[in-house]
């Protein structure tokens, strides 16, 4: 039953990923990407990480996809069509490279035979059961699966304190930087006459800029 479910989700996921990569229209590509994000969230549910699935939907569909859509709207024609074509040769060579990498990866995964103290990946066919079923399972692990939000919250402030703080700095940096980059450098004075003069200077400077290129 869940094997079939996995098959359906995985097939749809691969199709959505392909759609993202191949769709000419950027908005369609972004839509496929949203579908892909959602299917990845479904995979997280299949892996009993519902909390992560919710976070995935919240961050990726609720924020990342929206930012991407805004990006498409603000940079391209309103239709969202990708006017640049990819040469067939580029496509074939890219596809061949990707197929080769996939073959190596799949072979590597299926070939993993395990080492001392670890089962090979190909031999792991069932996930370790958690508490009510398996007496062996630790209470911690059971809680991590059944109430991940709680455990994650606790770990964030103990064992993962430093990554948590760094993530905070990273998000602040991204926020500050993205605003500084995207804002239109307007004149900073409030006087309208001064403002117009500065704006004119700004455009003039942009037009007369030397091409700083080298051979």
């Amino acid at each position, binding site marked *: *039953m869940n094997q079939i479910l996995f098959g359906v989700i995985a097939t749809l996921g691969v199709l959505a990923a392909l759609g993202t990569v191949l769709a000419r229209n950027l*908005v*369609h590509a972004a839509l496929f990407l*949203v579908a892909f994000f959602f299917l990845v969230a479904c995979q997280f549910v*299949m892996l009993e990480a519902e*909390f992560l699935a*919710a976070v995935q*939907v919240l961050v990726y569909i*609720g924020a990342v996809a929206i930012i991407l859509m*805004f990006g498409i709207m603000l940079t391209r024609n309103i239709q969202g069509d990708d006017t640049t074509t990819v040469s067939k040769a580029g496509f074939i060579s890219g596809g061949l490279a990707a197929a080769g990498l996939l073959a190596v990866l799949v072979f590597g995964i299926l070939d993993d035979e395990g080492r001392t103290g670890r089962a090979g990946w190909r031999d792991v066919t069932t996930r370790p059961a958690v508490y009510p079923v398996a007496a062996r399972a630790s209470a911690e692990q059971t809680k991590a699966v059944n109430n991940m939000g709680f455990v994650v919250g606790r770990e964030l402030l103990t064992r993962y304190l430093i990554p948590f703080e760094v993530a905070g700095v990273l998000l602040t940096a991204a926020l500050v930087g993205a605003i500084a980059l995207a804002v239109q450098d307007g004149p900073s004075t409030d006087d309208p006459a001064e403002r117009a003069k500065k704006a004119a200077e700004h455009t003039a400077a942009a037009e007369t800029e030397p091409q700083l290129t080298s051979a």
Partner: protein
Amino acid sequence: MNVATDWALPLVWAQQSELDSIPWLKWIIVLAVVFFGIFPGIVAYMVWGERKVAGRFQDRIGPNRVGPFGLLQPIADAIKLITKEDIVPRTADQWVHLLAPVMILVSAFLVLPVIPFGLGLAAVNPPSGLIYLIAVSSISALGIFLAGWSSRNKYSLLGAMRAVAQLVSYEVPQVMSVIPVILWTGSLSMVAIFDRQVEYGWFIFSPPGLLAFILLTIANIAEVNRTPFDLPEAESEIIAGYHTEYSGMRFGLFFLAEYLSVFAVSCLGTAVFLGGGTLPWPFTGEPVVTLGSGQGLLSLILVNLPLIGIFMAKVGLYVFLMFWIRCTLPRLRVDQLMSFAWKVMVPLSIINVFIAALWYEFVFRPGRPNYLLGWGVTAPLVLISVIVVLSIYKAQMKADLAASPTSRRRIATAN
């Protein structure tokens, strides 16, 4: 609480080995009856109610022709919408044009299963229910954007851009304002939040809770695009915004989704801050716990009937509040809308998290609930922070108005 846990999402059951047919059956019944019968019915009569209320506010009678008191009006409207010709603009992106309202509707529907309407009456009780709720409600922004984009109409696109900017901005205070509740409950589960309020009384009965409730209500109103935050669909500016190019049942879907999300956010506010179906403290606790302890079907029904009744009454009041605000306040300007979100709502909700932590220390910390000290410390803090943030905001708005030449001109022409 067993009832709640095994009514899980299909995906969740699928991997539980004790999967049998009965939860599926239950799920199908719930889906058919509740989701396609009861909720659309509620929506239909909410529209009727709004028209009646608005009529009274504007010194009119409101719908009164179809059926007694116009009670059949919503049904007539629905028939009209369904039978109307479904027009799709020729240049529109067909599939996306169809997908957009469906996406919004699905987002509105998906919020409802985690709401605990009564004891064991949350359709699902995932341990991270609140995050799930926030996550699925954020999908609607995408639907609105796609609706605007696929219509190939500049008004639609403008409306969509406005709507998305607004939704994204107000989502921040919306999420931040429920953080006190998560802090006090120690869980993201909606059912746990309900239980906690049964134990300790409604969360609104505390200074930080009150502030959080007010912030949540404002953010909710903005999230469902209602006046005074209805810029995305402002008829007089951008002729209904993102659903300009929708007609017939597709428009009906937008309509359904909008009122459904009004209902959903009212349920959210009620469940999270107003104690769900319980009566105010100190009348809570006892009856619910004693009745709920019996496991029989009868006791379940006996408990749930008043619970659902009280819950619905509260939701009704919440919805009425939204209608009232709609009838009273004018629409904001875009810059006012955004600066209000980022300069008032977000700072206040962040400050409120810290005040809520104080309240936790005084009241919820196991062993020593000290309400007097809690109120004595947090109430002045809440007051001070509100006054400070608002006065800074006002002063800044005044300075901006004085400095900006465009707004001076606007005032001059208005005069």
